[in-house]
């Protein structure tokens, strides 16, 4: 009889362990909203992260001084009740009273000062620093009034307020950066209950919230890396809201009877960045003719029409049609293989040129794999021999790119930190020396600097028209299209697809039957 023991034993262990595995938290389906993300955040400290997911989660636990109204796309008050220019370089902001952090401490001007000083401290290397680099000092006038001194006129001041979460001065001083990575203490509509890395975040409604209270008591944010699994979860009722649905899969969701899709143009332009600045060393793209050839090789209009089912807006440069400063008169590159081949030959590559292409997963850009396939095939026709190097984890790809290891060609899309202005992409992605920029052009840098410090919007628009002309002629990168996001939404939930890509679960309500 001894013989049977091991088998029975193994089974018993398996069963025991299975049964004793941690049980799901006690929430009912009715008061819980489930939202799926493809990859997890690296930290719960939004200013320290570059990830879209960190911004999204930040919106739930933290508040901003100003927020964008999703319908009008205008920026309005939030934790700040009003703001005005005292002079060209001073902004005075009045704060909302009676707001409390999750730990009970009241929100005052001290917190605003501490938040901005933390982000601006060069030693801390916060990702969000570039957003606010023009702010010189933050002064507390009284408990609910703050004055910002800026380095020259700063027209984007209010826009940028939507990109900065308010953190507690007490937490910053007493707990420090490491603690804040895992313990967000905000004033927002939800509180973080539990974070199981790469698995799930559980948020509970902040019943002391100063603003409109969210409908759902719990929000579960599940990390589901496989797209097929996400869709399966949505149509089987396991998840309520998913984003970045591939255009090809919309019919699966719409026909399921369980969920539907919604799409919206989003403030994000996709492109292939070319290493013009030679950050990864000498490469063919330092030659303008090669960059132009790449742009001329690709039939972007055809790809939008046939691969994206029309869900994309062709752009002439990196500037998104929704952003302030976009030039509608600039016509994008159109496929011209003969011209592309000629330019390549002129540049010294009559027999084609070899290029390494770093690609990432479809986290923010729908159908990226398929469109990449089509782009690579088009480029091959013009003589580009593209060697593809796929990185499955977006955070890693981003880290590499930041390190200057992205060249000579890589996938990139920029979400403007949800600031609807040309400057929000020009500064970070085209200005010489910035972490995500692989382009270096003194003339453009000057235009960016002037645009940043001009208060008159008409003059600014003219500056950006010039900048776009320059970027188009110089073919800085391989320009693709403005993205349209596709969301999958369960039929039990009412939810509006957000144009700024920031999902707000606190706006979701049950759907009326």
């Amino acid at each position: 009889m001894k013989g049977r023991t091991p088998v029975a034993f193994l089974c018993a262990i398996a069963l025991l362990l299975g049964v004793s595995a941690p049980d799901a938290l006690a929430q009912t389906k009715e008061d819980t909203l489930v939202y799926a993300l493809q990859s997890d955040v690296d930290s719960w400290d939004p200013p320290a992260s570059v990830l879209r997911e960190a911004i999204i989660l930040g919106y739930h636990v933290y508040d901003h001084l100003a927020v964008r109204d999703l319908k009008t796309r205008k920026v309005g008050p939030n934790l700040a009740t009003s703001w005005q220019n005292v002079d060209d370089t001073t902004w005075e902001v009045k704060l909302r009273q009676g707001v409390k952090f999750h730990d009970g401490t009241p929100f005052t001007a001290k917190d605003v000062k501490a938040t901005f000083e933390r982000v601006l401290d060069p030693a801390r290397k916060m990702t969000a620093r570039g957003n606010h680099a023009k702010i010189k000092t933050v002064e507390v006038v009284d408990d609910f009034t703050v004055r910002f001194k800026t380095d020259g006129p700063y027209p984007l001041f209010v826009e940028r307020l939507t990109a900065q979460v308010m953190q507690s001065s007490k937490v910053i001083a007493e707990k420090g950066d490491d603690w804040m990575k895992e313990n967000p203490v905000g004033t927002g509509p939800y509180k973080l209950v539990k974070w199981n890395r790469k698995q799930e975040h559980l948020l509970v409604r902040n019943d002391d919230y100063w603003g409109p209270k969210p409908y759902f008591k719990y929000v579960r944010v599940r990390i589901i890396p496989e797209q097929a699994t996400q869709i399966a979860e949505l149509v089987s009722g396991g998840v309520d809201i998913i984003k970045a649905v591939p255009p090809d899969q919309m019919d699966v969701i719409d026909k399921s009877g369980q969920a539907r899709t919604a799409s919206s143009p989003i403030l994000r332009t996709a492109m292939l960045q070319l290493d013009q600045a030679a950050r990864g060393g000498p490469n063919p793209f330092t030659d303008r003719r090669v960059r132009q050839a790449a742009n001329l090789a690709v039939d972007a209009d055809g790809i939008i029409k046939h691969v994206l089912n029309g869900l994309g807006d062709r752009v002439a440069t990196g500037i998104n049609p929704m952003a302030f400063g976009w030039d509608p008169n600039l016509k994008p590159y159109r496929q011209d293989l003969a011209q592309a081949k000629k330019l390549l030959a002129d540049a010294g590559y009559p027999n084609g040129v070899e290029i390494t292409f770093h690609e990432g997963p479809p986290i923010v850009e729908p159908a990226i794999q398929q469109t990449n396939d089509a782009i690579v095939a088009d480029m091959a026709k013009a003589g580009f021999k593209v060697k593809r190097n796929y990185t499955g984890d977006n955070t890693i790809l981003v880290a590499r790119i930041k390190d200057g290891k992205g060249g000579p060609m890589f996938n990139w899309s920029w979400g403007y930190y949800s600031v609807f202005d040309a400057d929000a992409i020009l500064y970070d992605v085209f200005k010489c020396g910035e972490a995500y920029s692989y382009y270096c052009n003194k003339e453009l840098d000057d235009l960016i600097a002037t645009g940043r410090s001009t208060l008159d919007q008409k003059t600014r628009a003219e500056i950006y028209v010039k900048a776009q002309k320059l970027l188009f002629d110089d073919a800085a990168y391989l320009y693709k299209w403005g993205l349209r996001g596709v969301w999958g939404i369960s039929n039990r939930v009412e939810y509006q697809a957000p144009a700024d890509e920031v999902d707000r679960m606190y706006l979701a309500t049950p759907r009326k039957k």
Partner: protein
Amino acid sequence: MRAFIARQLVQLVVVIIGISVLSFAILHVIGDPVTLLLPQNAGKEEYERYTKIMGLDQPIWVQYWKFASRAVQGDFGRSWYADTPAFGLVLERMPPTIYLTFAGLGVALLIALPLGIIAALKRHTMVDTVCTMIAVAGQAMPIFWLGIMLIIIFAVRLRVLPASGYGSWEHYLMPAFCLGAFLAPITMRLVRSGVIEVMSMDYIKTARAKGVAEALVVAKHAFRNACLPVVTVLGLQFGQLLGGAIVTETVFAWPGVATLTVESIRNQDFPVVQCAVVLLALVIVVVNLFVDVLVGLMDPRIRVSG
């Protein structure tokens, strides 16, 4: 018996040292860790600074000794990516993977034992072939394909199981089946050959001649003896199962250590990789030791001769 266990323990120590050397070598065999970490355009000063920080300027045996003596205390350094201790990160993700692997083993046995025994008893008949085919079919279906098919059938169409995630027992069914199907063919092969061997032994023939019912013969003798090689190999297959676990975890959004390791490999986050590899190897070693002792208890020949 005591000598047998002592020998096992000595072997265990040797294997553990070997594993620690191999996992230490990961970093050095693959390339220069500093170059892997630094941006391509980093200057010489930066390079030297990093070399110092990481202690890479010291002789290799000093570095190994440091690594090993810290590892014994559970200190594998801080994750270069998440900036928290690697040991904690790995430990936190260990249980889901171990549960999943055991559940997979259980399923593999549930499939392989009956099929293997039937195939052996009906050797060289249609039944044998069909049993073999069923088992091989499990292996021939790539795990992620099988996984997504299961999700489509049981979660999307029938809506009887959760499509993914980790928590209740329902979450175990599909991933465990996927892994089990991956392991079943080799297990079945073993059961089959084990039973065939046993059935031709004299004592079985004697039992049969004595008129003991066939079913009883199978149950009492054949089954028990067929277990020996199966148990042994299952111990060894534990390592193989990890390969399957990586894919299974990804498809079912299972928060295990296998996906963590793959992510860390992609991150080139070597402290986490080293820690995960050492801990996983330890689990495998312990399982194997356990198996060897079990086999030793079951099989008197080994106890005596060793």
